[in-house]
């Protein structure tokens, strides 16, 4: 009964999310699309952090890889020499596959070890990805960038503007539904067993390493899919679009939304994308509260604020901000907690 109500509410909210772009002010459309893209990445990362107990500081690398796969495959050769001019939908399909493959290669040796190995390796992956984009100029356009990416096209219809936003949110909602059913399935029970105790899960015959690897590959694929959609939003790619802070921002979204909480991942993605946009505006102002702002202010604000969020959330709400606040709310409603549980 409760799951049916939940499913109904999710579908209703999803329908609103998909319809919303057609009523939005055009000035807010790009921000709204970014929220949907971030939600797709955050759902994958939340599964990884919540159930595998592993943290990836390199989701931005997969995001960038997905975008460049689309850029190279979809751009016509007359606009970009190495472009393949493939069908945009086909190019979009290749993005998550390429990322899943890279994820599998990196993940096999690392996921058997403690969390910090994957954290540092994925971080290195992001830096390497940037170095490759800079050096393989003929394939990526280097610092100048990859120009001429066509809009997404489905059955002869160009998907731009509010239609693109609607497509992105449709994919985000579908991703959420698939992730929810995954968690509720037999595999989901195995994942929850791993999350509560890896040793007992292994003792019950669950192949812990294999589940962790599959989660990492899934999260890499989702980041690649979002990156591919991002390429169709920008229609122009350069390394400046994928600084290291992108990877860290995804971690902040999951930390706020709650590790392993899928609705939380979506809410965290929306909140942090909005916050980032606000900080950007604040930082480009001439002065704030009577202080002259330096040129670097936008960067200082977002790096500093996201760092502070990570510290506070991890200290006081280790499972995430939203689950922590829910817990507080529950305790406030029941002032006398039972001593036995």
């Amino acid at each position, binding site marked *: 009964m409760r799951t049916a109500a939940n499913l109904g509410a999710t579908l209703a909210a999803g329908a609103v999310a998909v319809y919303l772009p057609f009523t939005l002010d055009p000035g807010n459309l790009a921000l709204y699309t970014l929220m949907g893209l971030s939600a797709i990445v955050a759902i994958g990362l939340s599964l990884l952090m919540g159930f595998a107990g592993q943290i990836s500081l390199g989701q931005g690398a997969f995001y960038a890889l997905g975008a460049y796969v689309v850029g190279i495959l979809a751009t016509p050769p007359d606009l970009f020499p190495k472009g393949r001019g493939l069908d945009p939908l086909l190019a979009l399909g290749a993005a998550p596959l390429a990322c899943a493959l890279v994820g599998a290669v990196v993940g096999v040796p690392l996921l058997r070890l*403690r969390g910090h190995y994957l954290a*540092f390796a994925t*971080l*290195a992956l992001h830096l390497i990805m940037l170095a490759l984009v*800079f050096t393989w100029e003929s394939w990526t356009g280097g610092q100048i960038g990859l120009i001429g990416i066509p809009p997404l096209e489905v059955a002869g219809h160009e998907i731009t503007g509010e239609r693109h936003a609607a497509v992105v949110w449709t994919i985000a909602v579908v991703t959420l539904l698939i992730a929810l059913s995954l968690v509720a399935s037999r595999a989901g029970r195995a994942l929850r067993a791993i999350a509560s105790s890896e040793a007992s899960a292994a003792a019950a015959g669950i192949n*812990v390493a294999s589940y962790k690897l599959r989660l990492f590959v899934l999260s890499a694929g989702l980041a690649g899919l979002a990156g591919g959609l991002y390429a169709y939003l920008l229609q122009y790619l350069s390394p400046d679009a994928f600084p290291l802070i992108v990877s860290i921002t995804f971690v902040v979204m999951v930390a706020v939304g709650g590790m392993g909480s899928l609705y939380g991942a979506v809410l965290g993605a929306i909140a942090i994308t909005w916050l980032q946009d606000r900080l950007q505006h604040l930082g480009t102002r001439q002065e704030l509260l009577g202080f002259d702002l330096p040129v670097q202010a936008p960067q200082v604000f977002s*790096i500093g604020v996201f760092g502070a969020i*990570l510290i506070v959330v991890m*200290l006081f709400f280790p499972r995430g901000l939203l689950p922590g606040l829910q817990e507080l709310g529950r305790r406030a409603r029941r002032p006398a907690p039972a001593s036995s549980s």
Partner: protein
Amino acid sequence: MREFIQLVVIGISTGSAFALVGIGMVLIHRTSGIVNFAQGVFAVLGGLLMVSFVDDMPTGLAGLISVLIVAVIGAAMGFIAVGIRGRTTPLASLIITLGLALVASSLELLKFGDRPHTYEAISEHAWNIQGVVVQPQYALVVGVTVAVALLLTLALRRTIVGHALVACADSARAAELVGLNVRTVAMIAFAVSAGLSALGGLLLTPVVPVNYDSDVAIAVNAFAAAAFGGLGSIGLALVGGLVLGISEQLVVGYIDPQYNLAIALVIMLVLIGWRSRHEVAT
């Protein structure tokens, strides 16, 4: 051949600096179980503070003051990173140190701006040994690193503080039973480790200029060096740093400077793949 030796010489010195930062990571991990992401920040802060002090006072004094300031900052970060007893997991501590690193970077950006900083090396006069140029600064980095590795190993074995650090690594509960305060011990480890990394950073700054965001690459390299010994051995971290430094310089010299970090990752992956057959997954 001459070019090869030249690259190896440079690699040994940069590798020593990685090792110094990596040894700091090992020290913190052994005493508190925390993998400190902010380790690169200590090196960057050491370099930046040195640059701002060096014009007003003797070089040695400027270095000493920079190291001490960073050690105090390190102790404060340690206090936060240990977190709340019984609630903060090692993974949460890692994310907290990531947050600390971000906050530190943003403050550095505010204070020092977005451009590389450097100061003059101890001597502009380089030795020329049969065509191979050896800068005195390189020799200084290597000498300090080896001395620190030896001293630290001795201190951990022979002094009371050293025993306390090792005891906390063995079992935090047992250490508390005999009256050690785990948080205090972790703060000492963070302070010493921060001082070492600051020393590595400020010694390398004359040859490799430092920027507010250099900390990430330093942290990745230092982690790869420390991972050589599974984050547990000072000696192996030193070896790891040297292997890493030399191979990166060879890549820079013969292939492409952009790929030097890729080497760190590949070495880390191969090594970890090899180790993971021995280490039980946890």
